[in-house]
């Protein structure tokens, strides 16, 4: 086991961190303290976290250290590794806001299944990450608590909605984070921060305890700095859950094995013709083309594939997701949790409800509730929501046909590199177009990954791999092979090229490892 010069525990991968702890080179408490210090030093500038649970994290780390010391207890593959959770997953006793004022100060009385599984696996939950309100957005600028800043350039967006989770990982505040992906909210942030993000097959990870946005699309998944780390977290969080009736009752695909195999020889890779050209930046397209050529050098067979209905994915999504959201967000009624406004003894429940929702929801959430209510209202249902569901069928058919001739599909993960904060805030359609390439997989339900393939204008570019449902392992085979070949060329990780962040204070010294 090699540790970096100075023994900086925040620079290790999750796999290395777990090994260091299991072998006793460092304690879980030391690892946790190092990350809490890093957060204290840089998160004033990055603002990846909405809440840091210092006491809870130290207590969890102490429990892992006790289990390691007691050799009779076996510890998991990620025991003691710090984890950041997107603030859309409920955490018992730890605030959960979903980036909204309407849930400010709410302390959930239960854990999401993802939360409880990862706690049981010995991961140390260090805090909750920033996000666009109720996961609606592509920049984190729609968070009620202020935007997250991209660690590569603090004046730019970290992507969204899971910008906090991606930025936390990219800024070495945590080696692992959980995100959720309804239309690209794990993959687009991964793309613009130079990290790895995976949306598992819909139904592969439990949605129990995930604050619902669009229930037929929402899926939680891993955010990490390496493909293997993403696979380890994927394996720890996935699997059937009786508490989620849409959860798939089948074994988790062998993602860790595939990441270690990292072999694309003989694999048939299809480049999606429709996810290129207009709307995609030239620098993004160049890095993408180079990566595809590299995959070919590594032994994959590459061909172009047409998915003619992908062009209709974005408009279909912006009918389906708001429709489901308008229904899901009806639960914020000023009665059971969160905010209540105007309860003066005179106003009726309906008036209090309307005042509370007006005060508690931000502009993007209101826009989508109104849009969804429109698309579902009588007289418009068939023309909008009904038609969008037909597009969903056509997109699924495109995927099915493509997977008869190729094993996986690839495209740029995001049409551009990180844009400046504020650049698209007044133009909802321009913001929505960030998800051009990521939405098809959500509508189809299949798994997809973004991994870094280089820089354009000094900013990260991500490549997306899409696979058939329940073939999440194929993502990791491609990702693992491409990552290894690229790091050979770069002589290290892409993130090692990121500029040093300004630090607020120098962290406390740590024992040498």
């Amino acid at each position, binding site marked *: 086991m090699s540790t970096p010069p100075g023994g900086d525990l925040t620079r290790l991968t999750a796999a290395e961190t777990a090994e260091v702890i299991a072998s006793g080179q460092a304690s879980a408490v030391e690892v946790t303290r190092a990350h809490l210090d890093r957060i204290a030093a840089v998160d004033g500038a990055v603002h990846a976290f909405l809440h840091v649970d210092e006491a809870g994290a130290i207590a969890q780390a102490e429990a892992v250290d006790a289990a390691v010391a007691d050799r009779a207890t076996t510890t998991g593959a990620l025991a003691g590794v710090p984890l950041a959770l997107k603030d859309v997953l409920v955490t018992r006793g730890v605030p959960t806001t979903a980036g909204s004022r309407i849930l400010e100060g709410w302390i959930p009385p*239960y854990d999401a299944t993802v939360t409880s599984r990862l706690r049981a696996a010995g991961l140390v939950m260090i805090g909750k990450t920033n996000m666009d309100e109720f996961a609606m957005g592509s920049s984190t600028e729609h968070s009620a608590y202020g935007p997250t800043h991209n660690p590569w350039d603090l004046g730019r967006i970290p992507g969204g909605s899971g910008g906090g989770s991606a930025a936390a990982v990219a800024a070495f505040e945590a080696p692992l984070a959980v995100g959720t992906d309804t239309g690209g909210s794990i993959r687009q942030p991964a793309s613009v921060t130079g990290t790895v993000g995976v949306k598992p097959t819909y139904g592969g990870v439990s949605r129990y305890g995930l604050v619902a946005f669009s229930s037929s699309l929402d899926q939680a998944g891993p955010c990490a700095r390496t493909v293997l780390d993403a696979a380890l977290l994927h394996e720890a969080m996935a699997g059937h859950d009786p508490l989620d009736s849409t959860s798939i009752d089948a074994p988790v695909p062998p993602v860790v094995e595939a990441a270690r195999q990292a072999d694309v020889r003989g694999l048939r890779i299809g480049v999606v013709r429709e996810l290129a050209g207009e709307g995609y930046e030239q620098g993004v397209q160049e890095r993408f083309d180079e990566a595809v050529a590299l995959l070919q050098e590594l032994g994959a067979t590459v061909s172009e594939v047409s998915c003619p209905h992908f062009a209709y994915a974005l408009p279909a999504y912006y009918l389906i997701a708001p429709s489901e959201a308008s229904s899901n967000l009806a639960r914020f009624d000023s009665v*059971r949790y969160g905010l209540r406004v105007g309860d003066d003894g005179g106003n009726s429940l309906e008036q209090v409800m309307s005042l509370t929702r007006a005060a508690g929801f931000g502009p993007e959430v209101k826009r989508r509730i109104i849009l969804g209510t429109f698309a579902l209202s009588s007289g418009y249902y068939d023309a909008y929501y009904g038609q969008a569901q037909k597009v969903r069928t056509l997109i699924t058919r495109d995927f099915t046909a493509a997977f008869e001739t190729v094993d996986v599909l690839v495209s740029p993960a995001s049409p551009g590199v990180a844009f400046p904060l504020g650049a698209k805030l007044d133009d*909802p359609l321009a913001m929505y177009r960030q998800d051009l390439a990521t939405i098809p997989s959500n509508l189809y339900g299949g798994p997809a990954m973004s991994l870094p393939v280089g820089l354009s204008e000094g900013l990260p570019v991500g490549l997306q791999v899409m696979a058939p449902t329940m073939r999440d392992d194929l993502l990791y085979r491609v990702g693992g092979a491409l990552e290894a070949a690229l790091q050979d060329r770069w002589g290290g990780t892409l993130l090692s090229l990121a500029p040093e962040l300004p630090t607020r204070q120098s962290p406390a010294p740590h024992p040498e490892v």
Partner: protein
Amino acid sequence: MPEITREQVAHLARLSRLALDESELDAMASQLGVILGAVAQISEVTDAADVPPTTHAVPVENVTRPDVVVPSLDRDEVLAGAPAAEDGRFRVPRILDAE
């Protein structure tokens, strides 16, 4: 391009229990018009074709569980997160209008 009027937005806001102010109604009407104009293109492919709708990515049906009692959430813990509670229950404003 589909028209959406300020009155329509006000009606939708009432249906969705959102007390929008005047400037929000104005902004929303013009933004929704633009968004609906952009999404209307889906009819290009769905109008002609006889395509069944997809409601869910992974079709599952009749998921059941044994009908046994399991512990529910702790009442006090749940009520602690409510905006108002009284006598071990959620307290709500009056539900009938004054008139």
